């Protein structure tokens, strides 16, 4: 009976809970997300609110930011989780054995994942409330919040959302996009932790992560432009992944992928059109840095004596 992982898990929960920075980061994420959602929803044109715009407002996606606000917060939590352990080791000699380091890292991944899920849920709830409160007249959010039809009506009680209907409709309407949002946030938290484990410092870890994520999204955008729209795949080309709803949601959540398409060279053409990289090189640029980072993180943990 080895109770070590549970000890590590309990330790990690206490560690994360006992830090003031955890709560400050969570509060900052919620406030910034609510502000972004309010701005986004105020800029909506009259008419029905599309599912894409709804996801963007609820997930607080800032245009051309590499990650949603909640994912940035989870990233920071993951990075600080490792950096605090390095900077203030409570039991430095206890991490000498690899099994104990592995148990602690596993506990950290689990706890950061749980914290990311909580952060996602809180962000969605707060932003949905913001959308409902700040929805301008003429915008119909029926697809997102059934029954939330603001504007001057004769029956004020009709303006109140039917919460039962919202809860019933939510899994079917928003289940997949919100699941993908939660996955993005959790993965961002883990990535922050792994990147910091390479450099043992939170700031350097976040910079390292940025140098992987930003080019990765841009190259993914280039790849998606090569993918045919509708119909079948062209022979020798990419499959038609652009039409997959998952990819569509990801494109909504990570708007930076269109950065190279918006950036224009002098003759008015987009950089993405000028930059005709071969497909294998694009795949390599997209996949090699994260793979290398993961391998280096594992190798370093095998080699190190301290976390």
């Amino acid at each position: 009976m080895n109770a070590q992982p549970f000890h590590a898990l309990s330790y990690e929960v206490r560690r994360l809970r006992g830090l003031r920075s955890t709560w400050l980061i969570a509060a900052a994420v919620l406030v910034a997300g609510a502000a972004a959602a309010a701005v986004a929803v105020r800029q909506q044109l009259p008419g029905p609110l599309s599912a894409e715009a709804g996801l963007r407002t609820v997930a607080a996606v800032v245009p051309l930011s590499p990650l949603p606000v909640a994912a940035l917060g989870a990233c920071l939590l993951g990075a600080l989780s490792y950096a605090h352990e390095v900077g203030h080791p409570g039991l430095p000699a206890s991490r000498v054995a690899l099994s104990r380091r592995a148990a602690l890292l596993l506990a950290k991944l689990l706890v950061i994942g749980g914290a990311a899920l909580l952060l996602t849920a809180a962000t969605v709830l707060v932003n949905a409330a913001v959308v409902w409160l700040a929805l301008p007249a003429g915008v119909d959010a029926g697809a997102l919040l059934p029954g939330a039809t603001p504007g001057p009506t004769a029956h004020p009680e009709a303006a109140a959302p039917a919460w039962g209907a919202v809860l019933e409709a939510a899994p079917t309407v928003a289940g997949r996009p919100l699941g993908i949002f939660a996955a993005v946030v959790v993965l961002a938290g883990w990535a922050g932790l792994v990147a910091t484990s390479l450099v043992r410092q939170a700031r350097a870890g976040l910079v390292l992560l940025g140098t992987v994520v930003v080019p990765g999204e841009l190259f993914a955008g280039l790849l998606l432009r090569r993918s045919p729209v509708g119909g079948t795949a062209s022979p020798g080309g990419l499959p038609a992944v652009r039409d997959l709803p998952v990819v569509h949601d990801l494109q909504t959540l990570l708007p930076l992928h269109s950065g190279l398409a918006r950036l224009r060279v002098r003759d008015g053409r987009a950089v993405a059109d000028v930059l005709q990289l071969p497909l294998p090189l694009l795949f390599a640029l997209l996949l090699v840095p994260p793979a290398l980072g993961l391998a280096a993180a594992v190798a370093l943990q095998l080699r190190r004596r301290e976390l």
Partner: protein
Amino acid sequence: MIQITGLTKVHRRGGPPALLDLTFDTRPGTVTALLGDEGAGKTTAIRLMVELERGRGAALFDGRTYRRLPRPETRVGLVPETAPSCPGHPGRRAADHLRMLAAAIGVPARRADDLLEQTRLAGVAAHRLRSFSPGMNRRLALATALLGDPQALLLDDPTAGLSPRSTEWLHSFLRSFAAAGGTVLMTTCSPLEAGTVSDRVITLVRGRQAADQSAADFRGTRLCPEVVVRGPQMARLADLLLAQGARVRSDGRSGIAVGGLARAEVGELAHRHGILLHELTDRAIGRPMPHTALPIGSGRSGEVVRLHRTPPPPSPAPSLSAQSSLSSPSPLPPLSPLFPDPPDDVGTARHRPGALPTVGAPAAGPRPRPVPASAECPPPPPPPLPLPLPSPTRPYLRTDRPSARTAARTAAPAAATTTGPAAATSTGPAAAPTQPPTPADEDPPTRPLPPVRPEQVLPTAATPTAYPHPHPHPHLHLNPNPNPDGLSRPESYADHHRSEAP
């Protein structure tokens, strides 16, 4: 039970090894001290024991290395060198911090609260760690080390920078921990502390194990016993003592330190001549490590030495033969110190046929054990200190390391003090601070004290903190000798003083 075998640390960049072939055992119920100056390899030894650093050799805790222990915190508690700095995140509260670590070890949170009580931190349990002083940090580090209720404690310089009160508390704690069957291994820079608190002292000099002595041996060879006498007529007593052949020097206000006479003899002398005494106390002061031959260790470490071209230990063989003749007759003829090796010629010195065949041949013969600097050793050459040559009366001056740690350490109380029964009116050392001599009985504080032979008297004004002082009066610590020019007493003063005596 901790078995240390051949711990060696050689840095990758070359240079002399930080630690060379440290070998000793510790038994339950004892306190072992690793003594050495800064850079002697004490911290490296501790870190190698818990495998925070890579090195050679092994440290076995009940037969297993630290990494193989199933729950190491329940076997070995570690107070690391960084203990005076913040032991955790500065924004965390002490109780939260300790409960968190208790959760990591798998002991109930109640244990953390108990330990806060035991280390006298319960009152500040709700304070954040950034408000903790170095002494509190060290107590918290000690509480952390004790969370798993370990049988062994490793403490890396646990009293550096502590106040005398905290030092005393920590010493008594370590003694009681050992008395309860625990094993304590601590490092220290202070010979006084090592002789006071430990049962066994292992001296490290530049990474080599220079001596492995019991505390009694250590006190006999490295500590200089002296008797501190206080009273109103110290000038007269000093003259009498000097006539008896004792060594006398002034010690603070209205006190003298006497070497060469036992406490009872001093008390009897005072009684015979009707001299009033206020204090009569045994004390020990440190003596510098005699620069005896450094042991060369095993064949493997000899390789390391040759590889890195360290300066050769001056004439290792006489001490080696002295040591090995204690256990078994040595087949090695002693290397005569009359043939000085050229300083760069390590390899040829080691490979001289018949001189030291174990070097470079790891399997040849029994490994010579490190040399205790005991009475069997030939008298050591005088150490190359920046000070004038030390006579046997000179205590250990630590002026070569003028750091804050040293100052704090040397200000700590020196040794166990006892009160002589033969004194005419002797008070115990505990009663001494509560009964300051009345001004009528006291020497005039501005008057110098009577060291008559100036060549036997130390220039105390040059290093005022070099004398460990058992007297806990703060002004005595701050100003142990108000008379920097007290070495040349006018002869008329003694006469005048003698006429005052009853």
